[in-house]
């Protein structure tokens, strides 16, 4: 019987090796799929269709690494994807998209000033920011990622929004 117990114990050791999959940030991956889709549903002016397609990023989030991963394999049209992290809102330079993480939400007004003469899609992730200048704002509804679209805030940067994107948004303002 002892021999068998040792065999069973071996199985328990194997059992204890079960680990949670921590190799992926589930929320970051879902957001990156959203962001890639936004680039397909929004049209940038002709002058922005040359060179690299730049996604600017400010704040601390594993979404940055996920976007870098995405950039390794994906293009926007014929444009190579480039993800640039800015130290803070004052250092932001010309980009197609600027993603403002939650921890930098209070810098949104500075971000808006920095991009006002550009055609930049501003994406945020804090409740209420769609009313404060953000074009697309991620929100949580029933434990899921959704987005609010403020069409006016997108179009004032000379970007065209597809009607399909409007239909997919949780709210359109």
């Amino acid at each position, binding site marked *: *019987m002892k*021999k*068998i117990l040792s*065999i*069973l114990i071996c*199985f*328990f050791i*194997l*059992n*204890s090796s*079960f*680990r*949670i*999959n*921590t*190799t*992926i*940030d*589930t*929320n970051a*991956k*879902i957001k*990156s*799929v*959203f962001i*890639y*889709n936004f680039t397909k549903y929004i049209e940038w002016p002709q002058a922005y269709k040359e060179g690299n397609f730049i996604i600017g990023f400010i704040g601390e989030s594993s979404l940055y690494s996920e976007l870098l991963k*995405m950039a390794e*394999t*994906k293009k926007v049209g014929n444009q190579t994807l480039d993800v640039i992290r800015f130290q803070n809102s004052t250092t932001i330079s010309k980009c197609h998209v600027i993603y403002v993480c939650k921890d930098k939400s209070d810098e949104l007004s500075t971000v808006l000033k920095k991009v006002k003469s550009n055609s930049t899609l501003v994406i945020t992730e804090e409740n209420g920011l769609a009313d404060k200048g953000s074009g697309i704002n991620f929100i*949580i509804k*029933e*434990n*899921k*990622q959704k987005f609010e679209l403020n069409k006016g805030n997108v179009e004032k940067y000379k970007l065209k929004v597809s009607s399909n994107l409007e239909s*997919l948004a949780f709210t359109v303002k």
Partner: protein
Amino acid sequence: MAKRNYILTALFLISGMGFGQFIGKDGVSKALFYLQKNELDSSKKYIDEAILDTSTSELPKTWYYRVLIYKDLYKANEKDNFDSPLRQNAADALNKLSQLDLTNEFTESSQKMMVYLASTFYNDAARSLNPNSYNKAIERYNKYKQLMTLAKSGGDLIQQDVKFYLALASMLNQNLEQTNKKDSTKLNEVKNVYESVLKIDPNNGSANYSLGIIYYNESADIINNLDYDMDLEQLNKYQDICTELFLKALPYMNKCYELKYNLKETLLGLNNIYHGLNDTEKEELYKNELKALELQNK
């Protein structure tokens, strides 16, 4: 073995059977004669006849000797045969003996043989715990249980069930991880085995933890494999599926937390599940508790 031969000799002499008196006696006596001489094949021949003879077929001693003979034959010839017919015959004979032995004449000895045969089934069940023969393992384990129940040995069969099914689920899960994680039939099989453990022992930490991890990882794997090109309608459908899986993982992981089972891993699990559910408040709560635990353990 010496003690047993002594008993057999005594029985043989008491029954008044000299070698010369042997002819004309019933099959049981002949079987006993050859058993005493350790001529097991001849002994088997006569005991097989005896169970077909109406004058001996309902005698407890017929079945008792049949157990002895078949058990010895099993030990001599089929010990490495997991499907040994000789052992099965011995087990069946023990079952019949327990029905006929109303005066408990053979109870003590037969109980020992039940426990012995049961242990051989148990060993073989454990040795069969592999992806190719686990159904056989279950079959053998059930035979072990039948014999142990018959022996009324008082062992904790419920705990044995828990151990066996945990080992089975663990083996199946390991195999799934190494082969094809997406095989939903096999994955459901693993879940069902863990669920069967929880039916017996709802507070089993290992089964709760494993189910929590399985549901979480199932969801994480789906998300990990999402194509960036996936359209948003499809993404929303996947979010529904994944949220449901995170919610399924939650009660199991909460139970582990309540039991303080594998606390560090459990806190990590809860942190990740709430992250997947976009519940930042609870995610932070468990993240902080995990940090505190790690500091404490430094």
